[in-house]
């Protein structure tokens, strides 16, 4: 049993995961998730750690409602009550101007993840671009 197989198996057991691809050569694990999942990043990071690996970077595609708190936009994942700060990606600052106009609306955002924030790289209407 290779380490990649173990990591893939462990991540695949998380409820709500549709598929997992792991490449240790590239140092990359890609998880596609089922609609309606309630997966939290904490359990993903813990699974990686428990299988002997360290997460260096996390990028997400997330659907949620943009809400305002303390004058700043956040993404609310109502299925898990998770709320993440939305912050500008240094390489895509113009995208963040769109984010601020989406308060109260459902969007799909892509970006780099930190424990409490998403650096927004792209944002789109969830009903488009599928």
């Amino acid at each position, binding site marked *: 049993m290779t*380490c990649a197989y173990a*990591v893939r198996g462990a991540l695949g057991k998380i409820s709500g995961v549709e598929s997992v691809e792991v490449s*240790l050569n590239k*140092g*990359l*694990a*890609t*998880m*596609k*998730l089922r*609609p*309606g*999942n*309630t*997966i939290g*990043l904490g359990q*993903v990071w813990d699974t*990686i750690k428990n299988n*002997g*690996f*360290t*997460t*260096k*970077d*996390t*990028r*997400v*595609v*997330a*659907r*949620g*409602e943009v809400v305002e708190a303390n004058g700043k936009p956040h993404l*609310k*994942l*109502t*299925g*898990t009550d998770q709320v993440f700060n939305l912050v500008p990606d240094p390489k895509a600052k113009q995208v963040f101007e769109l984010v601020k106009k989406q308060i109260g609306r*459902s969007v*799909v955002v892509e970006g780099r993840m930190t424990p409490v924030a998403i650096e927004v790289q792209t944002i789109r209407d*969830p009903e488009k671009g599928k």
Partner: protein
Amino acid sequence: MKRYLAVFSLSLLVGILPARAEFQQIDLTIFGMD
């Protein structure tokens, strides 16, 4: 009449259901601790 009620009820239900909110994909850059 029944069909109308069914369509109306379904429309109402869709309208009050919360929009889906979730992670769709997670990409992780990882390295091993051998």
